[in-house]
């Protein structure tokens, strides 16, 4: 992977100037490359990774992983039915997987009921959906490579050494 992408994947807020210095290119050039990635869709968006356990408000969310068994459509395979499913705003991720089930759908909702309602009233009733198994998420330990534990600032190295 290009170094610029590597830097941005780690820190979406890295400045053009800093990136330019790190990869030994002119800022204008870096800007152009990033624009190109954005246009091509290689960079889709920039966002913060939030540890929602530490956000103290009442809008806590429930998340469920739903295994969905579907009947593929002639000529279209799974794509069309997947699109019908992932277009629901409740769906935050949707993957086609190998194994017993076909789609792994991640759904987020205000509470248990909203998620169950979504499964019962929207997902299960779709024509090509043969069955579902819903797993409610109890605790998040690590997400997208980030360990969701409050980091201590404790420095384990001694401050000065040869």
């Amino acid at each position, binding site marked *: 992977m290009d*170094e610029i992408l*590597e*830097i941005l994947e780690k*820190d979406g807020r890295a400045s053009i100037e*800093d990136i330019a*210095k*790190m*990869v*030994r290119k002119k800022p204008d050039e870096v800007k152009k490359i990033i624009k190109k990635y954005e246009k091509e869709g290689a960079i889709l968006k920039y966002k913060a990774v939030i540890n929602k356990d530490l956000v103290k408000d009442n809008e806590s969310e429930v998340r469920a992983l739903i295994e969905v068994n579907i009947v593929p459509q002639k000529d279209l395979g799974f794509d069309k039915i997947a699109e019908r499913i992932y277009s629901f705003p409740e769906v935050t991720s949707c993957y086609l997987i190998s194994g017993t089930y076909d789609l792994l759908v991640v759904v987020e909702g205000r509470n248990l009921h909203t998620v169950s309602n979504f499964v019962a009233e929207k997902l299960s009733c779709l024509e090509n959906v043969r069955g579902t198994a819903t797993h409610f998420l109890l605790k998040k330990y690590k997400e997208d490579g980030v360990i969701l534990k409050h980091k201590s600032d404790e420095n*384990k*190295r*001694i*401050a*000065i*050494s*040869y």
Partner: protein
Amino acid sequence: MQISKVVEKMQPSGIRAFFDLVLGMKDVISLGVGEPDFVTPWQIREAGIYSLEQGFTSYTSNKGLYKLRLGLHRYLKNKFGLDYCPDEEILITVGVSEGLDLVLRAIINPGDKVLVPVPSYVSYGPVTELAGGTPVYIDTSKDGFKITPKLLEKHIDKKVKAIVLNYPTNPTGVSYRRKELEEINRILLKHKILCISDEVYGDLTYDFGHTAFPTLPGAKKNTVYFNGFSKSFAMTGWRVGFACGPKEIIAAMTKIHQYTIMCVPITSQIAAAEALVSGKRSVEQMKREYGRRRELMTVELNSLGLKCSRPQGAFYIFPSIKSTGLSSMEFSRKLLEEEKVAVVPGTAFGACCEGYIRISYASSLDNLKEALARIKKFLEKRTPRA
């Protein structure tokens, strides 16, 4: 109690007091650390933990676990095409530090001289003295901190038994291309001077491939090669290094090692063996990260007026602070007291390094940027306003 005369003569120097000052201070951003800021990759730590659960708590053979020596044999063969026999030519040591002590004690007779290009890592001279030898320091500060054939020839006489090379170099980040090393090797072979090659930063070479000294023509029988797990696998605290060389030297080193150390802790050896199997990807990732920080530091320090060349390896950069008119020690002390940024005065690595400081960029990008901002403030205070 009368302390040994050799030990008494060893320099405690002002550096120690400066180090104590740093250690006693809170909220310091330290660019003075000589170890990676990554923790040991998990798969390596896990192997250590698992070995404890399985009850591997005993001694190992003096030379080190066969599994680890065999792993090193393969590793060196794949990486450099070097063929060291795991039974007779490889010794596992407590870091490269122990290995250097062993080799110097193994080869030195009273009156023997050992060449030490400076600036250098701090232990080479003192350990030579402890072994009864005389270190001969070669000032490289006027040659871009590199030992050149000319400088080398100038310091050779009949009493010179060995040279300690270290590249990529702590504290300068300088390294050598194959061609340069070939010339040095030719001279060493001509004068029958043993090459003690400390290549612990070898995996952190950025602009060109690292040349292991024993891969040079005719060099293998005249070189003791040192490397370790500390820097490349971020395993400083595990204390595992290794020495490879001609079997008679390794045998002599093993003799001393068996009486003084016995063996490297088994947990560390098992973890090190795992590092050879699964650590390669982590090393690559760390190297890329260091490489980027190096670019940033080179640009920023030069733009602050602290001139430095772009390091080719390790995680150190060695800027000149002569423009400030301060000595290395004054600069470091004042920077610490006024801006709470710790660096190591160049003089710690040789008297010829007055006017330089060592900055370690084994620190997070955020830390580096904050430290640079503080250094900038520090320098601005000293620039007389027009």
